[in-house]
């Protein structure tokens, strides 16, 4: 799996990496592969009936099986299998009609059985690919699309959580998470910088969320990313790789990978060597540090899980006629019901609304934003191309400023549509529209029209009135100072008599003499 690496070299990263004095040397090629654990969104765990829930009281979601009581047996959760099949299909994998479960052994306090049930030999899905796009040099207008190969997706159990209390020298164990279904997605080392890794993971995250196979919230541990990083010179074999763990946001993923690439290059250029080790990303310091490896190299002593028969999946062709449909999983049936994936959604948005491709990315990057946009478009006469500006520049930046999700927006799509309709019908100016929007953010339940009326923001449409003003201006320009009073009168009317006539007069004189 060494093909095509040079084609993936990130612009900038190699140049940045090599100090000027080293420029005579061949450039370094960084290689990045990812192992991603996505928690399956399901009501119950992979092999037991316990509920799956984030932040429940410790050890409140633990069945006898989860605690590995002697004599308990795993029973495969159909929902988890379907989620993995969906994900596999969405990532262009071949779905194995027969996959197997294995035991991976190691002793750890939060692994009660002493082994994890996983799919080491024959995973449920293999040989897929994921296309993702990223912008070059931070310019939204220069986007490139890349592909990373997906080696496999395997079903496996999550572990519990250990809490080490060093002062009392005890370990507390919470088994709520023990046995929750995971999909391990293994991405081939086809990436070469933090940005690529981040973009690939972001795209995967969107796909998982679209499928509903995982909530994929990194902060809640539903998506965990480990990065394998190495560097080498062109034409040479891959360098020794390190594994970077403890990355809990996409932003940190980019930072961690870039730091690690940089570190390895510097290490090698200073005559050092890279150890095949596991390193943790320290988000505060922005660097990776070696993890304390207590036991050295582990031999996991893999063994087939004897309590689970092979996982057999069917397609329309192989589906046995007399089989109870509750007992079988039909790959074709799932395939037909896959929702539109983000890439397709983006294409459709560009095609249907004539917006720019980069805008379609932004629309999909925020949960619910594309739906919001489409809803606004449906309710206004304004062209989608214009609507997108309001969505991306005004709505989105406001939400970001206030750390709100689209769902939490105080301005609903119909309110925004109402506002844009006023603008489109030329009842207000775009400056006024922004003022109305600012008022709408307060979420006081007023409609745009009410705000316009209240604040007298409507455009002056009365022809007579406008003619009068224009005539007055013309008159003054030609030297007739008497009409100045007329203008003052108009200002007074506009301000409901609350303006200071002397000040208005001074202002008008100044403006007219300009």
């Amino acid at each position, binding site marked *: 799996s060494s093909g095509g690496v040079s084609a993936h070299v990130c612009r900038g990263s190699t140049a940045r990496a090599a100090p000027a004095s080293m420029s005579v040397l061949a450039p370094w090629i960084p290689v990045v592969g990812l192992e991603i654990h996505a928690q399956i969104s399901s009501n119950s765990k992979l092999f037991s009936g316990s509920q799956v829930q984030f932040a429940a009281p410790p050890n409140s979601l633990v069945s*006898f099986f989860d*605690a*590995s*009581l*002697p*004599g*308990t*047996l*795993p*029973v*495969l959760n159909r929902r988890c299998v379907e989620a993995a099949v969906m994900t596999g299909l969405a990532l262009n994998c071949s779905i194995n009609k027969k996959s197997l479960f294995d*035991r991976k*052994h190691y*002793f750890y*306090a939060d692994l*009660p*059985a*002493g*082994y994890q049930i996983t799919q080491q030999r024959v995973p449920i899905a293999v040989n897929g690919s994921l296309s993702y796009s990223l912008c070059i040099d931070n310019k939204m207008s220069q986007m490139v699309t890349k592909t990373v190969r997906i080696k496999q997706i395997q079903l496996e159990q999550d572990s519990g959580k250990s809490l080490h209390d060093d002062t009392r020298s005890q*370990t507390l*164990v919470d088994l709520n998470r023990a046995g929750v279904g995971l999909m391990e997605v293994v991405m081939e080392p086809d990436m070469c910088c933090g940005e690529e890794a981040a973009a690939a993971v972001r795209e995967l995250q969107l796909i998982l969320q679209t499928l509903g196979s995982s909530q994929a919230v990194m902060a809640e541990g539903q998506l965990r990313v480990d990065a394998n990083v190495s560097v080498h010179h062109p034409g040479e074999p891959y360098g020794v790789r390190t594994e970077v763990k403890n990355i809990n946001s996409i932003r940190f993923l980019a930072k961690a990978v870039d730091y690690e690439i940089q570190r390895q290059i510097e290490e090698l250029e200073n005559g050092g060597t890279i150890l095949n080790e596991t390193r943790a990303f320290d988000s505060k310091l922005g660097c990776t540090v070696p993890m304390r490896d207590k036991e050295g190299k582990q*031999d996991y*002593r*893999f*063994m087939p899980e*004897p*309590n*689970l*028969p092979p996982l057999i999946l069917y397609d329309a062709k192989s589906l046995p006629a007399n089989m109870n449909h509750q*007992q079988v999983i039909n790959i074709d049936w799932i395939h037909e019901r896959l929702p539109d994936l983000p890439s397709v959604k983006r294409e459709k948005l560009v095609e249907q609304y004539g917006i720019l491709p980069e805008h379609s990315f932004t629309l999909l990057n925020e949960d619910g934003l594309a739906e919001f946009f489409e809803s606004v478009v449906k309710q206004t006469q304004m062209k989608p191309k214009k609507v997108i500006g309001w969505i991306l520049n005004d709505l989105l930046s406001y939400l970001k400023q206030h750390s709100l999700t689209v769902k939490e927006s105080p301005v609903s799509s119909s309110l925004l549509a109402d506002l844009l309709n006023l603008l489109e019908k030329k009842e207000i100016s775009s400056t006024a529209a922004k003022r109305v929007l600012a008022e709408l953010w307060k979420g006081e339940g007023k409609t745009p029209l009410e705000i316009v009326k209240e604040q007298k923001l409507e455009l002056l449409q009365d022809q007579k009135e406008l003619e009068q003003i224009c005539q007055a201006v013309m008159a003054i320009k030609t030297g007739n100072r008497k009409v100045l009073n007329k203008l003052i009168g108009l200002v007074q009317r506009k301000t409901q008599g609350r303006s200071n006539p002397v000040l208005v007069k001074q202002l008008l004189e100044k403006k007219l003499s300009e």
Partner: protein
Amino acid sequence: MLRASLRQVSAALKEGRVTPTELCQRCLALIKSTKFLNAYITVAEETALKQAEESEERYKRGQPLGILDGIPIAVKDNFNTAGIETTCASNMLKGYISPYNATVVQKLLDQGAVLLGKTNLDEFAMGSGSTDGVFGPVRNPWSYSKQYKEKSVPKSHSEDEESNWVITGGSSGGSAAAVSSFTCFAALGSDTGGSTRNPAAHCGVVGLKPTYGLISRHGLIPLVNSMDVPGILTRCVDDAAVLLGSLAGHDPKDSTTIQDDFKPFELPNLTDVSKLSIGIPKEYHVPGLSSEILALWSKAAELFKNAGAKVVEVSLPHTRYSIVCYHVLCTAEVASNMARFDGLEYGHRSDMKDSTESMYAATRREGFNDVVRGRILSGNYFLLKQNYEKYFVKAQKVRRLIANDFVKVFRSGVDILLTPTTLSDAAPYTQFIQEDNRTRSAQDDILTQAANMAGLPAINVPTALSERGLPVGLQFIGRSFQEKQLLTVAKWFEKQVQFPVIQLEEVKRHDSGVFQHQKSASFS
């Protein structure tokens, strides 16, 4: 009454000739006076009497739950029983009370059976003598029978019974001894390499190992998941069929059970065996097979032939690799299955507090005996990355070949295989413990374990008494899920051989209806 078959006693309960409470009390009394057998680890007197009382209520209302209602049974101590200690005869689980019932236990209770207690075994069912549990060895009731005592010549009078008592076989020796000594009407064992059939043969009872997947393993503390089957120990073949009917079928908690429902059956009385083809696998004529048993085996074959059955010699060429293959697969699974006993969630925990790792190590050293630790060590060795292909994968391939041997033989038209169950009759304890557990297990499993490799149903039928007055049994192996055919043939054979009833002083006393406990365990 205590010597009656399940069907007979069930009829007596129905007719009110005996009440469930009386029956339970008699069994409990007999358990007490046969305590020296060490068949039970836990006697659940209180709950048993309560269950009997409830059963009695049902009979009074005329609404018994079925044939098992009010029948005292015993369960091997490697099945989980809610509220009653489950120890696996190990320090690791001493005092462990499971919060749930094994599916088979639940099924028995749901049908009104009275659970008398938990029976003794080799630690974690690893053994073939029921001698290697933390609660001490089980003594074969036949050691105290009139038949044995008349034939065995004690070396000196003083060491009489102490040196002459024989083992039950194992690892379900407690269950076999319990059924054999009439302290219960049926018992559950488990069978991984012969652990039900072997002690059944030595104790003169019927021992059925059903087809893998026919009975749920949920709640059975595993030895080798891919071979373990709950076993059934009864007085006669008909009773085994009754138990099978009440236990078999799909269990949503065990993914390896059959999907279809199981239809309980009654066994017909076979009158014509002329359409039967009995296979005699020549590979079972192993070195170490006693001449006595060989003769009995031949006699049995003759019996079938004379009754008109076709008796053919067949070959199962890979049988000879079975022992070594089993050793690899068994220890590998043991290493894995035992990993959960780390002292954290349940069971024994060492006081060692230096680190989590040292606590694990001390816990496991203190909790497991040498046999268990030895198997864990070899199992982990076979599973090491560099050894996996060489040992584990190879053993799996051999296992397939062994299973295919059976498929071929059955495809050739053979209905049932007839083999010995054990190499000889039961050895005296003092002699048995001369050899180590591994050697003994390898020898004793040799005739039984291939059926586990292939997942086939097999049954021990008590056949005759040896020259020493001890039981000897023969084994019938059937086609997958063809228990009815297997048991029908076994029943016919059982009827032909008329195996003698054990003559125990203790039982006579208790079964006369007088409940006077005598502390002394001696027989006149």
